[in-house]
Each structure stands twice: as C-alpha cells, then as structure tokens.
C-alpha cells in the first residue's frame, strides 16, 4: 500500500508543519516515508507544495509527480487548481474554500478565476470543500487552518485519533498545542 499526499498552499500557511505531522504519523505506524518541501524564496507568500509519500515498502523519489497523488490537500482554492495536475484520476481533494489574492490579481493584471470548482471537478468528483478559515477562527487562532485541514483529511484515514493528537503534541510548539488540537477536532468532525 502506498499513499501519496500533496499539500498545496500559500507560503506562510503552514504546509510544512502539516507534512511533518503526516511524516511523524507514518513513522509511528511503522511505515516508510519520504517528504519533500519548499524553503527559501517561495515561502515569502508564493505558491508552495509539500510532498508526502507513505508506503509499506521502500520509496525511491521524494517527490510526487503529475498524475500520481492519491490525495490533494489544499489550503487555498487557486492553489488547489494549480496543483490539480499532481492528482491521479479519481483522486481525492480536500480544499479550504478560502481565496487568497495573488499579487497579479491585487495589481489588476489578472483576475482570480471564478470557475475553480468546475475546473477541479473536471479532475475528480471526490472533492471536500472545507471552510477552514471559520473553523480556525472558532478554534481561536487563524494560523491553525493547516491543522483544521489535517483534521478533515484524518476522517479518510485509518489512523486512530490518539495518534494524530500525539503527533500534534510532538510537532507543535507547546504554547500552541491546545489550540491546534481543538482545530484538528473541529476539522475532523465536519
């Protein structure tokens, strides 16, 4: 069994923490795992993707290629569309409904696509739209969108809830553990 999860978002949204958490869970479950992430320039508000590859057997490449991802977990609408090519046929998308305007849209050079849902649906019918921003607000911290989304994703995986919460305790700064656990559960219970 192998699961390729591509996490897409905007630099600063915490895609990296999400991938590290998934990696930690994979290890707890005794699986092989490779992750690939973006540091540097693009983290300054640009498009970022992190790759999470989990498998029962050895994994060669640390990156997910076009048409390979079982799951696309996107923290923003436009970024989901940008990363759609990674998704395999009939793969699953979890997407935060939030729209963050990129600079070419802010300056008026381009417009934010209106038909993202339709275009995503051309790739797959398995899409979950999540209002992660509202849930993060409810949890008490707008920076927990990433854990809300992981919560939503967790519903489709066999991993016990305890393992997730332990991973949060391990990977998140102590002061933010509680709010992230709350955000995770809000995402999980939708």
């Amino acid at each position, binding site marked *: 069994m192998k699961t390729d999860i591509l996490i897409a978002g905007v630099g600063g949204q915490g895609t990296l923490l999400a991938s590290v958490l998934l990696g930690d869970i994979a290890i707890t479950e005794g699986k092989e795992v490779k992750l690939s992430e973006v540091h540097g320039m693009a983290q*300054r508000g640009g498009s970022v993707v992190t790759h999470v590859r989990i498998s029962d057997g050895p994994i060669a490449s640390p990156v997910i290629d076009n048409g390979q991802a079982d799951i696309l977990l996107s923290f923003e609408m436009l970024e989901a569309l940008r990363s759609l090519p990674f998704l395999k046929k009939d793969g699953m998308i979890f997407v935060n409904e939030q729209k963050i305007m990129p600079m070419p849209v802010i300056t008026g050079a381009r417009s934010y696509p209106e038909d993202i849902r339709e275009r995503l649906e051309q790739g797959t019918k398995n899409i979950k739209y999540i209002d992660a921003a509202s849930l993060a607000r409810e949890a008490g911290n707008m920076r927990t969108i990433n854990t809300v989304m992981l919560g939503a994703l967790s519903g489709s995986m066999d991993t016990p809830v305890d393992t997730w919460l332990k991973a949060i305790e391990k990977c998140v700064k102590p002061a933010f553990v509680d709010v992230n656990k709350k955000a995770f559960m809000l995402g999980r219970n939708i």
Partner: protein
Amino acid sequence: MKKIMLGNEAFAQGAYEAGVGFISSYPGTPSTEISEYAAGFDEIDVQWAPNEKVALESAVGASVAGMRSMSCMKHVGLNVAADPLFTSSYIGVNAGLVVIVADDPGCYSSQNEQDSRYYAMAAGIPMLEPSDSTEARDFVIRAFELSEKYDTPVIIRSNTRLGHSRGLVEAGTRKEVPLFEYKKEMAKRVMMPAMAVNAHKVLEKRINTIKEDSSSFDINRIEYADRKIGIITSGVAYQYVKEAVPDASVLKLGMVYPLPEKLIREFASSVEKLYIVEELEPIIENAVKAMGIGAVGKEILTIQGEYSTNLLKKAFGTGKVEFTGSGDIPQRPPIMCPGCPHRGVYYVLSKNRYTVTGDIGCYTLGALAPLSSVDTCLCMGASISMAGGMEKARGKEFARKLVAVIGDSTFLHSGMTGLLNLVYNGSTATVMILDNSTTGMTGHQDNPATGKDAKGNPAPAVDLETLVRAIGVKRVRTVDPFDLEGMEKAVKEETAKEELSVIISRHPCALIDRTRKNKYASSEKCRNCGMCMKLGCPAITRTEKGVVIDQSMCQGCGLCSKVCPFGAIGEVER
C-alpha cells in the same frame, strides 16, 4: 535509532558523528539548515562567516591546525570561495576538510543554475553525491575518511531536492576525533611558486590514485537487472531512475569526481545500451564518451531544470502519464510580507522613478509589480559596484537618479569592497543599506551586525554608520523606512548632491519584530483611488466599494494610511 530527517539535518548528523569540531559557513538556500542543525550540537563550534570565502578559509585553517572541519554553502557561494578552494587542493589537509555545496536545479531560490561538479574537476578535489537523507549522513562520515586518507579536501554535492526532503536515517553516536598534531610544513602549506609547482604534481598523482581506487569504492555500485538498458546516474536522479525505469541495470555513482573508469567500462560492456542520467550539465556523459564508450544522455534529456520520474518515463518510453491540467491561471510569485520595512524604501524609489541597481535578498522582490523599481540583480554585492559602472558609462547627471540598494547581510558579505571602490574612484551615486537586522531571505540568520552569533549567543555588532564612514563616505544618514516623508526627503537630497552618500534604512524585519502595533482598517471615506494599492501590500485588496485590509494579515506598519490622500485608513485598537 531511526529518525526522520531533512537532508540538511542528516548532513549535520553526519558531521556530528564524524567528530567534526568546527563549521564555518555562510547561509544560502538550499544549504543553510546544515549549519543551523549543526549549531544545535554543543560539541561542534559553528559560525556564520561574513561570506563564503572567509568561511572556507576559516575551515581550511582549522583543518590545518588539526581539527576536522567543514564549510557549507550554496552553489553560487562556491564562486565566492573559489579562490581558497583551488589552492586548498594544493595544500591538502591535516585533519579532514569537507565542503558541502548545494546546487539548485530548477532555480527554486537562486540567480542561476550552475553545476558545481565543474569546480571539483577544475580544482582537482574529489566530490561525493548522496541521493537521500541516509546517504547524506553516511557520505559526510565517508568524506572525512577519504579526506584524511588521501590528504585532500572533499566536496559533497547536494541539491535543493536532497537538502529539503526528509527520509529515515539511522542516527549513530559521535566518534570523538582528538586534535591532529600540528607542525610547520612550509613546503606543503606555503604556496609560493616553487612549492606550488611541486604541489601541482602531487595533486595530479593524488587524483590519479583516487581514480584508480574509486572503482572499488562501495559508494560506486552496480545494481544489475535487465541488461538491455544500463543507466549511469548519481544523486537524486538515481531515485527518479529507480521509479521510472525500474527494470534497468544501474551504475550508481556515489563519487562523481574523479570517475571510476574501470567500473564504468565493466558496466558499459555488460549492458546492451548505455544511458547517462544526470541533472544539469553532461559531465559524466562527456567523460564516458571521451573514454570511447557509446552512450545516450542529453540527446533525450535536458541540461535545464530539475528532473522527475515523469520526465524520465517520457524519455525512456516507460509509461504514460495522465492528469488534468490547471489551465491558464494567475501566477503567485513570492511577495514582500505585510509590514516589511523594505516596502517603504521601494515606494519612494518607485514613485520618483529612480534607476535602481539591486542586490540579492528579500529586497530583490522590489523588482516585481506594482513596485517595479529594481533594474538589476546580478550577484551578492553587485548593486554597489554596478552603480559605479553605470555612472562611469552615463555620467554624473545620470547618477542624480541612481540608487544602489543592498541588505545588511549582503553589504557585509561583499558590498563593503564595492563601496570602497566608489569612494576611491570618485563616484557620486547613492547607496542604500536596508538594515532589517537579519539575513531575511535565507530564514533569519544572524550576521556581524545583529549582535548574536550562529549559536544565538551575544556577539559584537558592527556599527554600520561607523563602518561606512571608515570606508571614506562623508555623507551618511539613517532613516526609518516607515517614516515615508523622512525617507523621501533623504533620498531626494542625497541623490541630488554630487557626492557619494549612504542612506541606512533601519527597521527590523516584520517577521522578527516583536513590538505589537495597532492594525489599520479602511473606512467609508475610501474613494477607491488606488494609491495604497501601489504599495503592493498583500493585506490590501480592492473591491467595488473600496479597499479592504485583511485584519489577519495586517502588521500595523501604517504605510497605507500615510499614502492615503483622503485619510480613509486609520488605526484600530487591537
């Protein structure tokens, strides 16, 4: 114990286990985290040097003095360190010396896509290339053994994908390596012509010996499978090969210079058709072809960008890839953060339409719309020297609208000598040092102006004003970039003067500034004139009813309220 580790963390782990005592580096994506992780080990003395040349020279010094030492940098950093690198191979080592250099195929965070293997060849220094986190750790340990066995520095070539991916690593314990004995060895270490002539001969012999031995190194290994296709590959490209052409026989090179000729010949003669898969330049390919062996490489591949499994599948015809495209959608380029102090500077430069020689750092983003003010970006330090050249070409009149912009870390890296040149050769340009008290772009490393060292301990902070004056600049002033009026006045006055001047724009990076500020919001007074949109702040968007400031993004810098002609943007209590 098995641990999941970032490639760069695994390099640091390898250094720790190898008993490394000293690391001197300059940050640069994708190499930075090696030194940062290493700084977490009490047993390793880790320092940020002002630039890569100083870093490597420091490591050479420690190696000569008997301590296992390392220096880490990005590919273009090795250009800066090239001078000591080339002669370090003449001098050899005392205790082991390893340089880790990280290439960036795909230019994720760099100004070019150069291939560092040319340096290994040019300097006659063995080069290893790991392919995952496990090998990142292992190869550092191996590199130190080779370094001491053959009396040579060893380069390890990493890249963005390797450094920034995570995999499982078996972490071991540290092997303490006592200081090697130090004694004067003039003929070996003082590279005057007579000694150098001899050292060059030693170097040639050494490389030939390593080349001979390398065919039996276990880091160069053959994995036989179907013999119809044989692929020679190395580094991360090996992983793509394993996935895209799983049935092929593979010669995986752990050492990419010098190449194991015997092993290559053996492999070539046992497969029907030979291919070379290497990212960037056709270096293995050219060497193999020069041995008189027929092979296919860049004929079906490319010297451009990063490889992938799909790219190889296409080249080898081993699988069809199906996916849905995203269509034509707006790009999302990186941007200056909300609250970034660089924004105030560029607002002024953009408004007054200056010619701006730029440099490398977060402030290079001032080239992008809507600020669109940076004219050039070449390499670290070039802003200042290029301004001097521009003035030579177009005269003093042109210099009245000419500004060189450089960050604090970049100024200390290689801007100081450029400034000295402007002083010495009579430039009248204006230089702006954007002092945000950190090395922002690479993830907030300290530098000689921040008052802290690589381990976070207090360190002397150079006073930039004093330094600039000492270099010989008479007109020096310091402005806060959020004081827009003051900034505009300073820039206008200094550029107008027919004399070299330096403006230090000082305000800490928004990501390290801990002062809590009130946020700003727009009101019904907004007439949607679009003035605030010229700031290119990602927190501000325009709607039909006027602009909206995203409260979760706003950092309270207040620039928008200062540029609003209608007083429509005000502070809100937080």
